[in-house]
């Protein structure tokens, strides 16, 4: 049996994010009280504890904050190595983990990237990023 990629457990907080990806949108949150952007999705602002939070569409553009080339992985990822996992600073000022698509030699910290919607399963899309 092929082991599948661990699937998010959608809940009230996270569902809009995952639904957004299915619709080709990268959603983050915005706090109407302290004006900070927020990722990952929460029901309370981690900066000011306000509950006045709304969803907003991110540009999908950012820079590589760090990355690693994975040579030993487990479970469903075992056969995929080597692959690149990175942390992206989105232009909106929030960070997210992702897969970076591109040639190993071209990948570097601080390089600009943009989102790619990667279909994993029929209702499961992950936001990967590639160099621009």
């Amino acid at each position, binding site marked *: 049996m092929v082991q599948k990629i661990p699937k998010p457990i959608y809940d009230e907080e996270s569902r809009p994010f995952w639904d957004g990806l299915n619709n080709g949108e990268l959603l983050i949150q915005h706090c109407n009280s302290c004006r900070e952007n927020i990722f990952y999705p929460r029901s309370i602002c981690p900066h000011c504890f306000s509950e006045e939070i709304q969803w907003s569409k991110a540009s999908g553009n950012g820079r590589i904050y760090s990355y690693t080339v994975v040579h030993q992985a487990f479970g469903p990822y075992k056969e995929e190595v080597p692959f690149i996992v990175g*942390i992206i600073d989105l232009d909106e000022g929030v960070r*997210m983990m992702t897969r970076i698509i591109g040639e190993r030699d071209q990948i570097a910290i601080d390089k600009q990237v943009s989102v790619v919607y990667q279909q994993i399963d029929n209702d499961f899309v992950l936001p990967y990023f590639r160099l621009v």
Partner: protein
Amino acid sequence: MKSERIAAIVGVAESDLGKTPNKNVLQLQAQAAKAALDDAGLTKDDVDALFTAGNWAWAPNLMLAEYLGLNTKYMDSTNIGGSSFEAHVGHAMAGIQAGLFNVALITYGSTNRTNPMKPTSQAPLTAQYEQPYGLPGTVGSYALAAMRHMHQYGTTSEQLAEIAVATRKWATLNERAYKREPIEISDVLNSRYIAEPLHLLDCCLVTDGGGAVIVASKEVVSRTKKRPVWILGHGEANSHNTITNMPDLTVTSARESGQRAFEMAGVARAEIDVAEIYDSFTITVLLTLEALGFCEPGEGGAFVSGQRTAPEGSFPMNTNGGGLSYCHPGMYGIFLLIEAVRQLRGECEMRQVNDAELALVHGTGGVLSSTSTVILGRD
């Protein structure tokens, strides 16, 4: 140094280490607990507080207390990863100072090598924003930090390898160490990549093993067997849970926990004779040395160069051979305490640091997520 004496570590012991296919986590903890009480000259009946951390039961303290036949006044199951046991020492001192109990038994046991964790098929709660990308959680997270440090400061793989080589030299002097054959910097660099820039020999071992530490009040210390190792300072801090949410991949919360511990102890960094610093990966040590203030941010690579932390070096560190070469069953923090106590008692034979009076013990938990610093000293 502060003169007030509140609590001391009076007993330490390991269980069987390495591969223990015939022992479960309760056996390992029982074995270590009995040996640590013997080491202290105390008995089971003296124990009135129980501290443990693990994910082998829904309420580990309850299972362990029942198994050991203990009914204590106080329990603490703080689990902040590998630094939990340094936190336990601080919490035990606080409890003793508050008059809540007199003798705390702190234990750990793991069969991580014999029974490794299995990959999960679901990503709940905040794990759903990281797990689907396939990063091998622990090593991958530390690799992200190492890559960033290299980018920001020009730190090299050779400099990280200095730590692995120096730590292995200490392991050659410790007959309980799992890996004892000497290695060179080229061996580290030529070992396969696990997650760039970390090679296999930048990574800790995966072993079984357990340990126990007995913390006692000043009153109890007068009737223990060996000379006490006083808890002079303690600090605790955390900065994130998931690596994506670490504010700065090059700065750990050791900056805060270390500062708190040094202030409480009233000692200067230069006074530390021996350091036991959590080495899940070479980069863990380098970041910690910077954050604790033994060198400036970005200078960790230069600091560890020239085998400074090796037996012949000027900064004796991880003198049992560390998580890199001696033993690492998942949450290594208790073994740092055990080694520091033995160094301060002068029990380390071939690997003894001359006249060690002050030791720094520093645990790191999660993915650089939590830190706890303890400063120990002898009379």
